[in-house]
């Protein structure tokens, strides 16, 4: 594993442990500070890897799954950090850092020689499209995790002492991170459509990958509409978990669909595990 990425992985992991320790022992401010510091340091290491790879390839390192997952981990960490800075993230914060570490670990499996950019990817839309999408992925990952925490706490019996602590404010975090994710999800989809118009003569071709990106967007959009009606609770948390699931299905799962062999575009080359 690359040194910077290894360092980043270790720091995300440490931040996750410290974040969880903080939610258990809220009277120890040291945990919060060190968790934030290690998370920031891990992000700097990942960002350095992206900048140096971009420089040495001469193009954004997002044409392969490896680079995409490094970016995804960074975005998860970034959203988690921004939520930490707004207020108490608590349990979700530590969990997000661990999720970032997990994503980076999965990404390491896909490390390999980078192939040069195919003609369709040589576009000004490439970097902004991928960046918007992964900011959205990062935010909706945090949102989905918050939803999972909410559902788990409810399942364990929210009224019971000790568990209620996890429910406290979690819904706000679902909403806040979704509010970061939704605009970038939309921007990513829109940039993808405009780019496809230039590259494939079609802003929309009902390709399975495109359709799943749309499904994700529809679920998140539906979630925001229902949120506006004042609906809260288990249904909303479950729906956000579903949205995050659809999001990850778009990234990893589409290849397993029966229609996948009919797919025109493979945005990400198949990995070599």
């Amino acid at each position, binding site marked *: 594993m690359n040194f910077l990425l290894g360092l980043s992985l270790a720091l995300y992991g440490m931040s996750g442990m410290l974040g969880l320790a903080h939610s258990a022992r809220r009277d120890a401010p040291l945990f919060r500070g060190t968790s934030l510091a290690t998370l920031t340091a891990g992000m700097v290491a990942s960002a350095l890897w992206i900048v140096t790879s971009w420089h040495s390839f001469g193009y954004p390192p997002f044409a392969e799954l490896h680079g995409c997952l490094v970016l995804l981990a960074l975005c998860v960490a970034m959203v988690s950090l921004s939520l930490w800075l707004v207020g108490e993230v608590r349990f979700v914060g530590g969990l997000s850092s661990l999720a970032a570490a997990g994503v980076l670990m999965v990404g390491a499996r896909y490390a390999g020689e980078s192939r040069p950019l195919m*003609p369709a990817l040589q576009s000004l839309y490439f970097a902004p499209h991928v960046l918007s999408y992964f900011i959205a992925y990062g935010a909706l990952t945090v949102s989905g995790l918050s939803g999972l925490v909410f559902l788990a706490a409810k399942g364990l019996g929210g009224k019971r002492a000790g568990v209620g602590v996890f429910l406290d404010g979690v819904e706000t975090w679902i909403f806040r991170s979704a509010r970061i994710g939704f605009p970038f999800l939309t921007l990513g989809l829109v940039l993808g459509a405009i780019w496809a118009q230039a590259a494939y003569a079609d802003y929309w071709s009902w390709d399975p990958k495109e*359709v799943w990106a749309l499904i994700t967007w529809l*679920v998140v*959009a*539906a979630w925001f509409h229902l949120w506006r*009606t004042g609906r809260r609770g288990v249904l909303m948390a479950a729906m956000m978990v579903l949205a995050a699931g659809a999001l990850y299905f778009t990234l990893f799962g589409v290849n397993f669909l029966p*229609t996948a062999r*009919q797919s025109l575009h493979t945005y990400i080359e198949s990995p070599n595990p």
Partner: protein
Amino acid sequence: MTQRRFRMWDLLERAGSARAGGTLLAVLAGASVLGTVILQSTLPGGSPEEIARHYGQGAWRVLEALRLTDVFHALWYQALLGLAGLSMLCATITRFSLRREKIGFALAHAGVLLVLGGGMVYFVRGEKGIVTLREGEAAGKFESARARETRPLPFTVKLDRFAVEYYPAEMVFVGPNREAVSVKPQAGRELVLPWDTTRRIRFKERLENARRVVEVLPGSSTPPEPAAHLSLETPEYHADLWRFARPSDAPDALVKTDGRIAVTFSTRDSPVVEPPLRTQPMLVVINHATGAVVEIPADAGKMFMMPDVTPAASGEILEILDDPDATAVGPGLRLQLHVGKRMEWRHVFAKFSDMDMDAANTRLSGLDEIGFVYYRPRLVLEVMEKPGPVYQLRSSHAAETVWTQPMKLREPVDVRAAESVKVTLLEVLPSAHVETWYEDAGQPTGVEAMLLEVSGPDGGSKRFWMSAGGDDGTARLDEGLMIGYMASPDVREYRSEITVGDAAGVPERCTVRVNHPVRRGGWEIFQEGYSIDGMRRTSRLAVVRDPGLAWVLAGLVMLSAGIFFSCFLRPATARVEDRA
């Protein structure tokens, strides 16, 4: 009346409520899932037969009746989209406001309406399709994607040239203990091998589109290598070629020949094994199971039966493919084969080597082997040294001399074995060697070449050309160094140079690349794809006329702007109500 208007407004508000919108969006998401888990007829590999085979006839009929094999163009899906659009329209009407906290809402909803409206404009008035062109071809019509028929274009497109460019090749240097270093060579750079710092490798010159030049020069080769310069005149072509006396030792300086006649230059001490004498190219069909053979003259339009095949199988020679670039596959035939009710198209190629009479065989679906052979007469030019050099042209059949004829320099001789073929001996060099180098071809050839200067361990240096992936793709300098030059398989760019013309305007030349379409009137021309079949390059261009595109693009921008505004820039008062 007021009561009624109130009710109407109430209805609109309900239809445009966040609750109705959210529900519709969720239903739409669920419906969309169906279109990705069921094979779709609109995607590649989605012919009715294939889908029926996948699900079984009964299930396929049900899917087809419910339009589940084309979900996104089915009336029920479009109706859902329409309902969502109506709901949005209601929402925009009932809640439109220029207040700051409502701007995001208005932008996003109006944006989606514009996208749907633009899509409808395309559906009603737009056209899209494919124009497939070979180099030099022109077309004034296109294969419509929606109508599945050929439709006229208001202009003609002519493909002047199609070019594919690859990423730069890589050079690998391998040392005596299999140490290796690989670089992307750049002209002017220098490389020091990590395992042997006494060696220097200088990349002198790099040609992106190279053409190989072979020249025979008088020179001091040991042992002396005699070479003859011959001119070959046939009704179809003229060939100018060099032949070495021992072609197995020295590389042939092949200039041009079409495979029908091979000329070997030999001195008396170099025996030549003679193949059968024929001038007519033959197609040989061999049934390897029974050993049956059919031989027919290879002429376009000739029909033939395949030997001992049940059910009966036959074929037709559609076209003779010449080999202007003298590639390794040689000339070929395009065949159409009928096996039972099945029809196949096949290319068969003759191997292109003077020394090797083996046919290039291609296996036909495990049924037969079809071989295409060009039989050639073997003409041998002999030099007899005593008394003084005497030249003679000899033709032979099965190691038996059929005829011989004395030759004089610059005097054409009729070849008796091959009608209307004249051979002229232009020049004989008692000792010659071949020099090979590369020059810029001035057009995309797909061959990259590099001039290297390698200093050896003894201090001396050697300059030579290499080509990526070609005949000169590897070089073993000595025991200490081997060099490989490998072309990249990755395409960097492909482009069509086209001329667009119509009855009114002046023809306009332009280049279409991926991500860089060309506009002409209300139409756009895109580089969609390409195929390379043998020597023929075919470009697939997409042509689109979409009067709704501007609406869609404007709508997409409004949608993003609206959602950004709603989520990030809404005033704090509006945000408070969102809090849990």
